């Protein structure tokens, strides 16, 4: 079952690209020219992202190499063990709703340290893929209409994040 799951996972990208290019051809678009426009924009996105990545990686790298992250992870271990959540992933779980770039840096750091294809690495990947920067999203969509009273939106949004993280751990444990 895991093999067929992997197979379907690996089909997702080729199928998506194929369907989109097929539609482009069917509607007689200049697919390559249009592709180039988008790709160029992609390069701009990455160039704009690099300073943020540098800054965040620096801060996270320092936390890691000074040993202070391990100190906090050890503090949290009794709690995370109790709920069977891998303590190595805890820094990611805490930062994920707050900052996209910081949580990305933490995720890379965790996978560098514990391996990409280990259980911890896979859980980290699945959490990164299945959750969003909740605080940022709420901030953008409330500020654009000038609303300050957000009622209780944070509650279900964070509950969804926690559910996603717990589900990630359970699914990865089940599959490995």
């Amino acid at each position, binding site marked *: 079952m895991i093999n067929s799951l992997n197979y379907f996972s690996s089909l997702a990208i080729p199928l998506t690209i194929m369907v989109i290019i097929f539609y482009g051809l069917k509607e007689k678009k200049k697919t390559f020219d249009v592709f180039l426009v988008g790709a160029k924009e992609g390069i701009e996105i990455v160039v704009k992202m690099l300073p943020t990545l540098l800054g965040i990686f620096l801060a996270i790298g320092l936390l890691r190499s000074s040993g202070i992250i391990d100190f906090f992870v050890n503090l949290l271990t009794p709690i995370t063990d109790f709920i069977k959540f891998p303590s190595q992933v805890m820094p990611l779980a805490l930062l994920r709703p707050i900052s996209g770039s*910081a949580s990305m840096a933490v995720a890379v750091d965790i996978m560098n340290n514990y391996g990409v294809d280990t259980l911890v690495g896979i859980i980290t990947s699945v959490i990164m893929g299945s959750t969003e920067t909740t605080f940022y999203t709420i901030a953008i969509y409330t500020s654009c209409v000038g609303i300050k009273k957000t009622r209780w939106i944070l509650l279900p949004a964070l509950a969804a994040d926690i559910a996603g993280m717990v589900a990630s751990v359970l699914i990865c444990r089940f599959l490995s």
Partner: protein
Amino acid sequence: MLNILWPVFIILSFVYAIITGKVNDVNNGIFEALENAVELSITFLGTISLWNGIMEIAKNTTLINKLTNMLRPVIRRLFPELKNNEKANQEISINMIANILGLGNAATPLGIKAMKTMQEDNERKDELSNSMMMFILLNTASLQLIPTNVIAIRTSLGSQNPTSIIIPVWISSIVAAIVGILFVKILIKKGRK
């Protein structure tokens, strides 16, 4: 938020390193971190450009409209109060499709449009309406067909099977979305009483 966290993280690390005698580790850590950031950016340069290019093609075809129409029944269910607001329905659908296709850059401006349309019908202008809350929740759930960034990171770190996470990601993001949607629905019902 990061204007507080960033300096605190850095100072805390230096102080802790000096106390525990790990100054050399920290020195190495600085350069390693910078190298990692550049390496990741180079990987992103490839993958993000590819997806942006592919999705640009999708944006130029009727595929987006077709997907948007497929989503209509779901949107009607989630936003009963917008029954008669065709404009809001449409904008929400397009925002969702952009999210699902990973068009982050397009999804946010579309979402802002949808929020503005919903604000017109909002009875209390300084407070989120029920529909707005459901809409924000859907945007905080990461419903994405291909988690391209994670796959890029996994590739750059030398994973044997970088795409193996796609289906687990689908399952757990759907679980997260369902929990969030039910929670919002329950709180809306309670709020009415």
